[in-house]
């Protein structure tokens, strides 16, 4: 019944899709076509003429041009291997576009590399020429949700909040290579950038003659070194400067780590402090009680171990002071080096009545600590003096009795307290650095004066 069918069905597109090589119909330059059938527009790298592939495979000149070729950070047709969600992914640069925006009369240009893999689609690699930063983008499978209410404009996507950074008009200034859509020099798009470093959400609106679309792109900061490695490029990536929009804040990096480190350091400090206190002998090297103001001391004593430093503590106790003071001048003269260490301690007691309130002040048993005293034999000299309030200013109190105690190898408080504050200072220091870094980032945003 049925007529004889041709021997084989056509089986459309079962054959391998081929790359192409053609000469530019405008300037004759060689053009390689690597975008397969997906390409809607080709811009000759040499003359910039806008060409459209016809169904026959030929290129038709849409708009002839004679622009100079620009040197982009990456060449057309370079291939790279990027880390994707399910392992390494290969991409090829098939199109290059330069865009720019103007803020307060200043032009900020960037280069956009269209990366293509026929099975994975397109990715966008952006190189910001003003600060040398890179970002890798991909169309979002979904729509971010604009937060309603007061305060800073935000969008939410997949439970993450992104803060509005800037809104600008991006203008195409240069086109080279293949694109699956039409791109023309002068094309404008309004781009809204929302950030949560190292990620940004870009909302870009564009209109053409037969419709409008809005594109949601998720961008991720990528180090120039990572780009260089992905493309296996020799040498170094362009130098960076300043803080890019979604550059990760190095001082915020591991906030948890800062706290864990702080806890570890505090524990270490506590252990060290206990060990330090425990290891002090507090040995009394000299002690004398019941001294009057006319008694002076001059006595040879042994302090510490020769060749080691020690911390001395001098306790001065004065009893019988009443609106009076007592002063002990202490001199330690090394019998080995003849170097002297001198210090003094003042005990005092003041009291009275003013405004119907009685008051009392003054320390009658001061302590003086002297650090880094070399061990050895010393001549200890103590010369006391004393005085009273009022008319008897130069007369020492009659019932003044003093006691001196000198200890070696004592606890030096600052050895314990200083490290504690230094440890506590670290998180504050990093918090400050992080704030300064954010300030630099946001100084390029639409919100120059505030970062919150």
């Amino acid at each position: 019944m049925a007529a004889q069918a041709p021997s084989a069905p056509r089986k459309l597109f079962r054959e391998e899709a081929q790359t192409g090589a053609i000469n530019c119909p405008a300037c004759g330059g060689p053009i390689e076509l690597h975008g397969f059938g997906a390409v809607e527009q080709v811009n000759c790298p040499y003359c910039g003429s806008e060409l459209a592939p016809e169904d026959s495979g030929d290129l038709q000149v849409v708009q002839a041009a004679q622009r100079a070729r620009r040197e982009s950070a990456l060449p057309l047709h370079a291939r790279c291997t990027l880390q994707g969600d399910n392992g390494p992914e290969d991409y090829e640069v098939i199109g290059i576009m330069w865009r720019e925006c103007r803020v307060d009369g200043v032009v900020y240009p960037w280069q956009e590399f269209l990366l293509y893999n026929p099975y994975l689609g397109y990715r966008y690699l952006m190189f910001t020429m003003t600060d040398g930063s890179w970002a890798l983008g991909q169309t979002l499978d979904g729509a971010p949700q604009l937060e309603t209410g007061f305060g800073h404009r935000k969008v939410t996507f997949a439970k993450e909040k992104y803060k509005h950074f800037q809104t600008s008009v991006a203008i195409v200034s240069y086109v080279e290579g293949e694109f699956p859509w039409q791109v023309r020099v002068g094309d404008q798009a309004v781009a809204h950038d929302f950030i949560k470093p190292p990620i940004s959400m870009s909302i870009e609106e564009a209109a053409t003659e037969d419709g409008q679309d809005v594109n949601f792109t998720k961008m991720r900061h990528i180090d120039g070194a990572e780009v260089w490695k992905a493309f296996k490029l020799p040498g170094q990536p362009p130098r960076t400067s300043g803080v890019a929009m979604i550059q990760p804040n190095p001082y915020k990096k591991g906030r948890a780590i800062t706290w864990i480190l702080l806890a570890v350091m505090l524990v270490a400090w506590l252990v060290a402090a206990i060990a330090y206190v425990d290891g002090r002998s507090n040995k009394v090297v000299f002690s004398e009680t019941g001294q009057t103001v006319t008694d002076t001391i001059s006595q040879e004593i042994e302090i510490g171990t020769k060749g080691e430093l020690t911390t001395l503590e001098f306790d001065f106790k004065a009893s019988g002071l009443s609106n009076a003071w007592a002063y002990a001048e202490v001199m330690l003269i090394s019998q080995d080096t003849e170097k002297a260490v001198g210090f003094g301690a003042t005990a005092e007691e003041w009291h009275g009545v003013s405004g119907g309130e009685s008051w009392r002040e003054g320390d009658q048993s001061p302590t003086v600590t002297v650090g880094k005293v070399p061990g050895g034999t010393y001549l200890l000299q103590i010369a006391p003096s004393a005085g009273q309030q009022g008319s008897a200013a130069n007369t020492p109190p009659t019932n003044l009795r003093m006691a001196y105690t000198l200890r070696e190898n004592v606890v030096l408080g600052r050895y314990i307290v200083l490290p504690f504050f230094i440890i506590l200072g670290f998180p504050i220091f990093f918090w400050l650095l992080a704030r300064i870094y954010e300030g630099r980032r946001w100084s390029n945003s639409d919100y120059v004066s505030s970062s919150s």
Partner: protein
Amino acid sequence: MQEQPQTHCPNCGAPAPFRGTAVSLVCEYCNSTIVRRGVDITLIGQVSALVDNGSPIILGSRGRFKGTPFEVAGRLQVAYGRGSWNEWFVNFADGTTGWLADAQGQFAITRPKNQQVVAGRVPPYANIAVNSTIVIDGIPAVVVDRRAATYKGAEGILPFEAEPGMLFHGVDLRGHKGEFFSLDYGTNPNHNSPIPYLGEAIKLADVGLHPLRQFKGWRRPAPPAAAGRAPGA
């Protein structure tokens, strides 16, 4: 499943394997478009102007969407002023059908729903603005694309008669959780009763689509493990 009567291409006599509710078929031997109305088979002519737009999908590609296997049975190619995209007609193993949208490397699988789901609850095409939010079937979604496009060509089978050159109006929306919706207003943009297609954005690897087309200089992704042969087989 109901036994389908054997049909043949009125032009070349080759088998014309209409399946299920398919209405239109492009003969893969002679490129004729054939339309089935009831038991009648009508030859529309050799009008399909399908172009190679670089899609990695081919007729016969199989995958699995939310646990249900499917096979790509047809393609509708749609063109607008600055580009083209593909709507692949898919048959699910449970007898239902759907569409695998393929636009510039972005993919989504949708299923047609009754017009009552949106009738009167969405604005007419002419009043829809991109980046506005519309609630579709209880889910808020953002309008990401709104344009008039023409049917350019087709291959395989389709569930309706798609006349090349026909201008239709479509709106695409994306939800906040990856949902993807299309509203097909057809040829008339001034009504508020489009056909809704509801589904979600996908990646080809996620649905294990295989086999895929071969591209010079590119390694074809390995078939999904579940669909592969047993070791040593």
